[in-house]
């Protein structure tokens, strides 16, 4: 299984994502944003960071990077495409996923482990997880406050919400003000997913949590070898 980890100038989680994909059983390759052919890869990850410095608006410039047309083409072919944090923001800007991001409610950067409640398992990100499962995964963002024009229309596409340790979803367990505590979503087909927290940061006991593994494994299990 070959996964492409897309590197924009300013991306900084590419090595971490590649490391975690390796633990989850994939063969990860870093691919520079000027490449235009991803037909060799069985899955694509847009990692976190600050693509193009996040200048103008998060993901707004990355959307125009040469590789993005190819990411769209492969997504339409059904290939798993996952955006983590800044990668999620890029997927929204590229209209592969709905919604947009504000600055966090409290106007500070947030780096800490938070709890997620899995809401839907019909996706490349959550297929190995169980509905209602509570995961502890680090959040790391300043513009993580998800918003969408019509939250009700997101039914069935919300993969995970911010929750407390018992899985209860409310204002108190919402770290950044995201609408309906939304932390992860997918497209209707379920093959394009975005998640604001970082599952790749929770893949080894020595780092404090292995709860991200179920998500990384879901992605790897979703990849099918590219047909030659």
């Amino acid at each position, binding site marked *: 299984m070959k996964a492409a980890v897309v590197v924009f100038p*300013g991306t*900084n989680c590419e090595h*971490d994502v590649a*490391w975690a994909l390796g633990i989850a059983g994939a063969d990860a390759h870093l691919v520079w944003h000027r490449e235009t052919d991803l037909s060799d890869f069985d899955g694509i990850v847009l990692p976190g960071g*600050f693509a193009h410095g996040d200048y103008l608006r998060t993901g707004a410039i990355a959307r125009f990077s040469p590789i993005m047309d190819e990411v769209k083409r492969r997504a339409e072919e059904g290939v798993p495409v996952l955006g983590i944090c800044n990668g999620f923001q890029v997927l929204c800007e590229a209209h592969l996923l709905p919604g947009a991001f504000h600055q966090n409610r409290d106007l500070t950067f*947030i*780096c800490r482990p938070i709890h997620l409640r899995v809401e839907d398992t019909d996706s490349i990100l959550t297929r190995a997880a169980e509905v209602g499962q509570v995961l502890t995964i680090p959040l790391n963002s*300043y513009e993580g406050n998800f918003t969408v024009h019509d939250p009700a229309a997101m039914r069935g596409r919300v993969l995970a919400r911010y929750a407390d340790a018992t899985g209860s979803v409310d204002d108190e367990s919402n770290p950044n003000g995201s609408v309906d505590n939304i932390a992860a979503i997918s497209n209707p087909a379920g093959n394009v997913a975005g998640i604001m927290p970082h599952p790749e940061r929770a*893949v080894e006991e020595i*780092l404090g949590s292995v709860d991200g593994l179920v998500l990384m494994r879901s992605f790897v299990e979703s990849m099918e070898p590219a047909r030659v």
Partner: protein
Amino acid sequence: MSDPVDPDEEPVHRLLGLTDEEFETIGGILGRSPSDAELAMYSVMWSEHCSYKSSRPHLGRFPTQAPWVVVGPGENAGVVDLGDGWLAALRIESHNHPSFVEPYQGAATGVGGILRDVFTMGARPIALWNQIRFGSLDDAHNRYLFSGVVAGIAGYGNAVGVPTLGGEIAFEECYTGNPLVNVMCLGVLRREQLVLGTAGTEGSVAVLLGNATGRDGIGGASVLASASFDETSGTKRPSVQVGDPFEEKKLIEACLELYDKGLVVGVQDLGAAGLSCACSEPAARAGMGMDVDLDAVHTREPDMTAPELLMSESQERMMAFVAPDRLEAVLEVARRWEIDAAVVGTVTTGGTLTVRHNGEVVAELPADSLSEAAPVYKRPTGEPIWLAGLWNNTMDLLTPPSVDEALLRLLDDPSIADARWVYEQYDHMLFLNTVIEPGHDASLIRIKGTSKGLAVSTDGNGRHCYLDPRRGGARLVYEAGLNVALTGAEPMAVVDNLNFGNPEKPEVMWQFRETIEGISEACEVLSTPVIGGNVSFYNETDGNDIFPTPVIGLLGLADPMPAHPPRLDGARAGMELWMFGSQRSRNLAGSAFEKVIAGHVGGRPSAPDAVMARGVIEVAIHNARLGLAPAVHDISDGGAAVAIAEMCIRSGVGATVQFTDWVGLFAENPHRFIAAVPADVASDLETLAARWDVPVTRLGHFGGTEIRFENGGPESASVGLAEATERWREAIPRRLAGG
């Protein structure tokens, strides 16, 4: 030339911070009057910040040698050998004055600068720390400075993609007009990747990489960093640089690729003194000269003068020295990472630095005269006349305090309280190496693919050093050494940031010399050579000096790294509560208790004990390696009472502690730590302590929902865990919200 700051009619050299004597010396070197461009170069290179002209006579005292030291002081960063072909690079720097004038950019560019110092050596920066000190948070301007500095560190560090693993925060009135912002960076590299700041041989070309040069930060080293502050300091804002972490991120990746491919012979970052430094120092180190063409420098704005180009401290720039046949390959790497590159000079024999602008020679001087001929001042030193009075001025409490109330007030002190408001704004997890995160005694970072862990602690204590700079300086080294030892690491090397007042005052130079003596003595005991440092003088406002505030950064190596290194938050109900170290600890001089409870700073802090220091460190290391006590915490600010309370709060469990009298609970005598001890390891731990002659005191046990202190008398007291937690967690957010 036009002066960028002050339209006063003083001679140009004085406006640039040069004394009349220094101006004459320059004339002597050149055999004629200096040109404007030459004057600009000497003014920044001979500034206190760049030349260490007041500190150099004393810095030679530091022990700097050990078999594992690869690069000692004098290069961009110190480098030590971790074994198996791995090296670590460490460097600390201050950005005090820029951060006072413009907190966000001042702190941000401090981060940018320290990163460049480390990746200049060929290392990938893997972690950042910062040590920041402000006046009281009750003051609105201090709140503005504090939140601005934290936002600047977060904004730059997070975006550049290097984790910030915390550091230190402290609040003290003396920093009100002069906050301290120190930043430290650690990098790792393979031995073959090591690069030095040398210009190489004749014919090498100098390639300026990265940001375009603009008018920001002109004279930062001389006008800002090497002068005292008064009410006009706000007008110095144009001397503060502006940072671009995105440019720096690309520059890091491009430079690491250049090293990987072996394309450069030397590299120098452009920090303080900008091009003046990046041209002269590498040439001088190589015993060469250089021809520099300022017309080739890519600029951000037109019509910059030669002095402006030479003095600009525009950020995110590096100078690479390249053999001519490798030039095209270097430019190709720059294109790939989308950074600008310009060939601005050629290395020559003969040692002359020649600078051209608009086709004319604007400077022609011996390259080494900028660094090596810089003046050295043997400033007078004198023990402060007020010191004896200060030592005699011990705290006099009319009535003993109530232990519970004192503990709650200490937990509410922002210097002791929960710092998560700060470190949760920093990405401290990137790279998946963070084994012990911020909020513990030391950070612990693994090196993937090896058995090695690197532990780092940074420590400062202005009050102790004010009361006794020699004891204070030594104790910082021992404290940092104990902190890394608690994770299982052996102390290895030290960097220091020496933040002091005005060196023209004899008592400040005396504090400086005494501090260096103390640090040196402790470093000799622990075999931790000083591999680099930074001196920041003129930390005074309106004639009032800060407390002498050395900050120690200590690197330790754990190999193998323990599988389950002890943590602050690992105490569980039923574990015994032990204290390791001297049982006769009753010194409150300079303590948080005296400051917070009695509003007093006086007396003389206790002397460190080299034998005990070494013994306690050995016990801590072996405890971690043998996997005995799973939770440990050093005793520092607030004494044993606060150390125990912090373990309880972080572990979510209460404790019952036996004590004799309240002084022992709050004293800050060094070389002590608390441990949570499961019954099945008790005898092993006792044997271990006995082997190193370290006294053990069984103070009580963990359990319940209260922190109880019992001595069988009316001093017995109890604090609810929930209330203690609330006070400790909310101390900083509450004050910031109270604005």
